[in-house]
């Protein structure tokens, strides 16, 4: 289909501000009379605050006020694991206990040093298996596990059960959660090749470049909060509840966000923004709270780690008959996420497993705030299972590309425990495109070629994430100047989807992009509700809402034209910013004239009546403020059917040095399968950005804690290394299948998360290939692990251990 905007590059309106430094992040703002808050954070991994004496601090010149957990929770903290604004019950090092505001940061910091906090030390734990062991320490006050809607629980295995698991055997303890489909026993019985092993994947911090600084002030009863978020209106909607202010009285200002990656999608993962808001309310001054890199690390979030066991069976024809996976999730100090089930779901989707059983238990450790991180679950399992697929292929005499094609998800297939049909799926096409553009078959002759200590490895991998939600709202406006105002509540975290999804509305109204304004950046710009922007969903979700709002405006345009010019709405078409009679194009009205008439007519044309009944409260507030101010198109998006998948396929070639354990990625290609391409440059950026994240996941990113005291040992970029430009290929090739999805009006689906999983899968496959098929059953695979393997020794001081120096 020939589109005017869809599939075309454009300059998102914020890009010039990014290259000139003019765009503002939360910390770039200041306000007359602004004071500065600094945090006193927990020095202990697990403790209870017994007493706070701030007398001396508060007597200091320049100190304005103090904020404690008792201030923000006068009725006491809720008995749950989630991150609080401030707490008296820290379960991670660095958790905010109190804040002091002063005329400058130095004074605030000096005052903090004069605050006497008495802590009661509590047992802490870094390794979930240590906590699971009978008599082992618990990360939380109420146990070592927290189940949503059920509360705290204490999960304990016998020492023998833990030892058996560490020794590489299937866990025998009862899991918290079991999900299964198909006849697992029969499927294994029909398998020609069966692989079974324990495995680990590491947790590691998000490390967004912008620390989560925030500034707040109150004016005329409204809270103005400058913060950071990857989901502008969705996060503001919930942040109002956290601060305790009516939604209509919170103005959340967030023009640009310096990275999210899952940790700034929802208000409850970044409640620290409420600290300056509450402090400002208390002391009646604007409050800036700058967050340091160390603080960003300690309470800023991290990926859930896995200690697991997997058994897979493949039939002689290469199809995956069965997968049995048991995962102990390291949920950290604040409760974790649903990564483990998502990992099993990913296996089912990507490899179309005939029978699957997932068993999972989530265990707390005092190792940071774990939660959603780019592909939570899907991307941990991708690098684990890819080398297993290769081993099966080699064993069954099937090519490694062919075994993936055999197990591919296609339109008409289903996936996951719910056996949900795909809205569309073109994995075979993605595999074929990657293979052909990478000359995969021709490169096979280079496999395992040696040059001194260096050896070539080839890898191919796949990534998946569910990539689309629905049920949100859309608003478009037009004034008498005829310009189209695209009200978009999507956060600006660097994907440019706030702008690219808006183009679906411009497409409907055949509007030149130059005549459109994207309205975004702050909630008093009157934005509709969106889904939280996690799970690769923005593209699918918000093109639907923008399209729908524009369709509403289009129908109203034709109705106005029919009223004024005679005939029925069906007699009219649009083009060149005019509504005109199909029979005689000279009879028509400009968009500006239509908008003027709409404002004269009022009622449904200006949002004053006949609104969709299902609009969210948040949207209704925005619509109420806009009503009567212009010509309005407004829409509530109904739920879609099926699973819109985002898929990526990556192929790579590496040269691995068996003497140093290091490898260089000689070449890499990533192919996106995400429906119609919405914004080619944006898609390319997601693919190359995901590649860099995949390189980190498979290569070196991890959490390290001091086992003696539970102190984080990797609180910055230096100790918790993220990939630099020198760790990544000079050029990453990209491409896309570009076939439309029927559940989206412009055919698009999301891609951000699978772009990472495919690369990590391809890399571990390539490492395994270079080492004659050895499978590490781990991510990351660090240089020392490779060197130790080549030397014939184990890297594991404590098998399956996580998070600490011993593991």
């Amino acid at each position, binding site marked *: 289909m020939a589109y005017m905007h869809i599939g075309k590059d454009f300059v998102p309106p914020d890009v*010039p501000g990014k290259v000139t*430094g003019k765009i503002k992040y939360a910390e770039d703002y200041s306000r007359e009379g602004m004071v500065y808050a600094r945090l006193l954070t927990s020095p202990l991994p697990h403790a209870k605050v017994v007493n706070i004496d701030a007398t001396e601090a508060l007597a200091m010149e320049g100190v304005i006020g103090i904020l404690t957990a008792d201030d923000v929770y006068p009725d006491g903290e809720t008995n749950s694991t989630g991150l609080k604004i401030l707490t008296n019950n820290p379960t991670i090092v660095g958790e905010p206990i109190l804040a002091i505001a002063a005329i400058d940061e*130095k004074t605030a910091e000096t005052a903090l040093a004069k605050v006497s906090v008495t802590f009661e030390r509590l047992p802490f734990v870094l390794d979930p298996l240590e906590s699971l062991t009978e008599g082992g320490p618990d990360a939380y006050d109420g146990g070592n596990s927290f189940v949503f809607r059920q509360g705290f629980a204490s999960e304990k295995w016998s020492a023998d059960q833990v030892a058996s698991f560490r020794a590489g055997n299937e866990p025998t303890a009862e899991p918290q959660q079991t999900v299964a489909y198909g006849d697992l026993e029969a499927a294994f019985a029909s398998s020609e090749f069966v692989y079974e092993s324990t495995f680990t994947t590491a947790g590691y911090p998000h490390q967004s470049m*912008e620390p989560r600084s925030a500034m707040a002030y109150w004016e005329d009863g409204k809270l103005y909060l400058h913060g950071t978020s990857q989901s502008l209106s969705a996060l503001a909607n919930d942040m109002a509840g956290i601060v305790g202010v009516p939604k209509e009285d919170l103005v959340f200002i967030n023009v640009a966000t310096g*990275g999210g990656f899952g940790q700034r999608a929802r208000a409850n993962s970044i409640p620290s923004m409420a600290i300056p808001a509450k402090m400002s309310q208390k002391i009646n001054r604007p409050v800036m709270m700058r967050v340091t890199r160390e603080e960003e690390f300690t309470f800023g979030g991290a990926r859930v780690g896995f200690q697991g066991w997997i058994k897979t069976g493949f039939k002689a024809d290469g199809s995956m008959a069965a997968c049995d996976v048991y995962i102990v999730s390291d949920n950290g100090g604040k409760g974790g996420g649903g990564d483990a089930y998502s990992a099993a779901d990913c296996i089912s989707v990507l490899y179309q497993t005939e029978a699957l059983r997932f068993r999972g238990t989530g265990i707390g450790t005092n190792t940071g705030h774990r939660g959603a991180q780019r592909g939570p679950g899907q991307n941990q399992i991708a690098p684990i299972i890819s080398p297993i697929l290769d081993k099966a292929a080699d064993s069954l005499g099937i090519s490694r590309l062919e075994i993936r094609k055999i197990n591919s998800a296609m339109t008409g297939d289903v996936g996951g425990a719910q056996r949900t049909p795909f809205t569309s799926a073109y994995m075979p096409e993605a595999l074929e495109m990657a293979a052909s553009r990478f000359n995969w078959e021709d490169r096979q002759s280079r496999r395992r070629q040696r040059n001194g200590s260096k050896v070539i490895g080839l890898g191919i991998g796949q990534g998946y994430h569910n990539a689309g939600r629905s049920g949100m709202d859309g608003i478009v406006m037009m004034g008498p100047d005829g310009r189209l105002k695209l009200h978009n509540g999507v956060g600006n975290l660097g994907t440019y989807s706030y702008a690219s999804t808006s183009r679906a509305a411009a497409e409907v109204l055949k509007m030149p992009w130059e005549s459109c304004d994207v309205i975004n950046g702050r909630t008093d710009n009157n934005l509709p509700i969106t889904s939280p922007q996690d799970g690769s969903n923005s593209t699918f979700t918000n093109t639907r809402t923008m399209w729908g709002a524009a369709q509403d405006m289009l129908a109203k345009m034709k109705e106005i034209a029919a009223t004024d010019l005679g005939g029925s709405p069906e007699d009219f078409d649009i083009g060149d910013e005019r509504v005109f009679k199909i029979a005689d194009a000279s009879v028509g009205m400009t968009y500006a004239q239509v908008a003027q008439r709409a404002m004269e007519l009022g009622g449904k044309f200006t949002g004053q009546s006949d609104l969709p009944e299902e609009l969210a409260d948040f949207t209704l507030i925005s619509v109420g403020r806009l009503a009567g101010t212009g010509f309005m198109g407004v829409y509530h998006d109904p739920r879609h059917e099926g699973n819109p998948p985002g898929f990526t396929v990556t192929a790579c070639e590496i040269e691995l040095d068996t003497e140093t354990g290091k490898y260089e990625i000689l070449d890499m290609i990533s192919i996106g399968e995400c429906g119609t391409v919405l914004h080619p440059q944006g898609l*390319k950026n997601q693919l190359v950005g995901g590649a860099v994240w995949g390189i980190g996941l498979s290569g070196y990113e991890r959490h390290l804690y001091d086992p003696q005291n539970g102190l984080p040992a990797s609180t910055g970029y230096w100790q918790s290394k993220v990939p630099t430009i020198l760790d990544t*290929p*000079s050029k990453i090739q990209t491409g896309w299948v570009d076939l439309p999805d029927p559940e989206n009006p412009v055919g698009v689906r999301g891609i951000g998360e699978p772009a990472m999983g495919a690369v990590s899968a391809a890399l571990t496959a390539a490492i395994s290939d270079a080492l004659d098929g050895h499978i590490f059953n781990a991510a990351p695979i660090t240089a020392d692990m490779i060197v130790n393997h080549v030397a014939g020794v184990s890297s594991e001081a404590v098998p399956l251990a996580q998070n600490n120096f011993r593991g």
Partner: protein
Amino acid sequence: MEANVAVNSKLTRRRFIKGVIASGAAATSSGLWYAANGQSGPAGAVERMIRLNVNGQTRTVDVAPQETLASTLRYKLGLTGTKIGCNRGECGACTVLVDDITTYACSVLTHSMKGMRIETVEGLESANGDLHPVQQAFVEELSPQCGYCTPGQVMAAVGLLRANPSPSREEARQGLAGNICRCGSYDSYLDGVMRAAQIG
């Protein structure tokens, strides 16, 4: 491969730390951080008015002895385009040019900047508003993602191209090696640098 990477030997981390210690800042690492960022300096510290050459203009500013250039630029001169990502010389978000040399503004003391020519991302646009070729190329290649590292990437690229107007892609890669992009937009930044070299 011998890449053309500019390094300012006068502005080493060692020199920075020695300067901070000499200024009497707190000895702990966190104290060092805040001392270097205090708006008005620690109690008893004497601010001195110095003149800085920033983006071609002479700016007079009160500076505490231990104050970093990043802090001065952002919090006293209002040049918030220079970002602070780590404040300890790890990420490169605060990269500026000092006498044409790429420099981490978080890791040099402002009082050591006297007589030097400081350029920040705000100083690159021409008087008529035209973007610098690097900025223009970064727009055309959609190099930024979240944009937080972008001012630093821009300044690193400008510094590289002044020293080496026609770098190979590998030389450009080495030239940007001091700047982390957590979004992973390295490929697009490299595309931008190569385009900027063509625009000249």
